[in-house]
């Protein structure tokens, strides 16, 4: 269920029922998003809870922003990364400071295809950078615009375009054209 502007508007007027509706929707989305990056549920729940409380705190400014939801995706992501870092440095002081990335296993290809192609695609997905996978997830699955994705990932819109374009080009190389097209081509040749 999409959160439309009437829900944000009601929240900005202290409507807790509307807040609950938004909370349920976004909690699920953030949970799903968080699971792409890390499996620890406690960290994800804490980060989701914190960013959703932020919505209430900022409720008087919600209507000033074009897409209020984006701001909170950003807050959730930052909160999650911060918590992951804190936990890492607490447990393993010498651990690598590299941030966890979007898990390759979370991205799949839904299509009937030959085993060979499938293997190539899975390898291609592994070859994508975590950022590319995350950008595509936010675009395709969450439906954020390129501009919104740029905000969430803390990069420029232009960089977001590049990241997605490169990723798709790489994947496209492996996929054959649909057989329908091949048949069409053949029939055209034959008819001629």
């Amino acid at each position, binding site marked *: 269920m999409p959160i439309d502007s009437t829900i944000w508007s009601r929240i900005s007027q202290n409507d807790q029922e509307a807040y609950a509706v938004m909370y349920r929707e976004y909690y699920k989305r953030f*949970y799903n998003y968080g699971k792409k990056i890390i499996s620890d549920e406690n960290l994800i729940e804490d980060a989701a809870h914190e960013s959703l409380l932020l919505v209430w705190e900022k409720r*008087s400014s919600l209507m000033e*922003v074009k897409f209020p939801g984006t701001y909170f995706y950003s807050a959730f992501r930052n909160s999650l990364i911060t918590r992951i*870092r804190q936990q890492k440095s607490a447990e393993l002081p010498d651990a690598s400071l590299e941030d966890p990335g979007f898990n390759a296993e979370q991205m799949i*290809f839904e299509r009937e295809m030959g085993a060979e192609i499938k293997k190539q695609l899975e390898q291609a997905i592994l070859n994508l950078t975590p950022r590319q996978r995350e950008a595509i997830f936010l675009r*395709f699955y969450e439906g954020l615009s390129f501009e919104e994705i740029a905000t969430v990932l803390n990069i420029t819109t232009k960089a977001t375009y590049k990241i997605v*374009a490169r990723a798709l080009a790489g994947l*496209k190389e492996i*996929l054959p054209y*649909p057989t329908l097209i091949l048949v069409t081509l053949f029939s055209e040749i034959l008819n001629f």
Partner: protein
Amino acid sequence: MKPNSDYLTFSASDFAGDEAFQDWVLRPNEENETFWKNFTSEHPSKKVEIDGARMLVHSIQFKKELPTDTQVEESLQKALEHINAKGHKIRRMTPLTVWWAAAAILIILATGFYFLGNRDNGMDLPVVAQQNTKQDIAPGGNKAMLKLEDGTTIVLDSANNGMLISQGNTKVVKQDNGKLVYESSTLTPQSTTLQYNTLSTPRGGKYQLTLSDGSKVWLNSMSSLRFPAVFIGSERIVEVTGEVYFEVAHDAKKPFFVKYEDMVVKVLGTNFNVQTYTDAPSIEVTLLEGAINVSKADKEALLSPGWQAGIGQSGTIKINKQANIDEVMAWKNGNFVFARANIQTVMRQLSRWYNMEVHYEGNVTAHFGGTISMNVPVSKVFEMLEMTGGVKFKITGNKVIVLPGK
């Protein structure tokens, strides 16, 4: 949608990477269906690329992992409890609230006014002799000085509670927990001249004041408020330095003005914070509730709740419509709140509360976020900052060395 001419040169992956195309494949609606159907029929040569791109976009999927309904509901309940707990109450518009809500202006004027910065007059926060062997610096407390029109000064830390003085028909009463109240009596005739008093806080000090009209003012460290004992005439005017939060009492007939040098905040009914520390990059006025007008020289801006006006050295006024209220108001609630702050910002705030000499060795590039009570020795604050792995501190007496984490 891009113009058709662009699309004609697209390869399959170009289409797949196009935002409008993606929306059509993943979220078809009447508008985009019409566009793409028309385009495909008008340009059959692109059909191969378009079909290939559709297939690619369609095929990319992600695993779906959702929380249980119980998890969602529990989290929601926790949030609702938090929201409705004391301190987060939704303001109800009872007549009393309407009267108070007239003007709560948080004006934090960072003017870097080093009142009582001189060690010799004994107002500085002492480095507490430690009971334990660990080096540490104690937090600040309710300390302030009141200076009257005739020059008399009263040190509020050591004064006894109860009525301190009376000025005309106003009684000045010191209450517990760092509060000073100006109680105006309407029985005796009013004087016709304004009697200005100045309340100032030293480093490590804070104080709260209730003005004769009922307005409440909170002063952070190294701040001051110059105000009349009783407001006379058609305007209420006060002057600030440092960081001050106001909750101005409503009086439509007597507008409330807060001044710092040539900056003026006109209160239209609100709660707001003003920050004018001179060691901060700009003056910041943050509005919590109501409306205020901020002006400096020939520039002005009208603020809505949640907005923050940043007034730069050159006099420009920049508006941030998503001020981090928690961060701005933290001091009034007895907390430090850092939100992606660099080490200089953090140390600057800490230095106003803790008496320490800060030295940097090496470059700290990390940014910091978090909340910590102000009422703790500085080592606790440093502990929290060190947890991020981005910084390390060494305390020797009141000298603090700041080092990069790793």
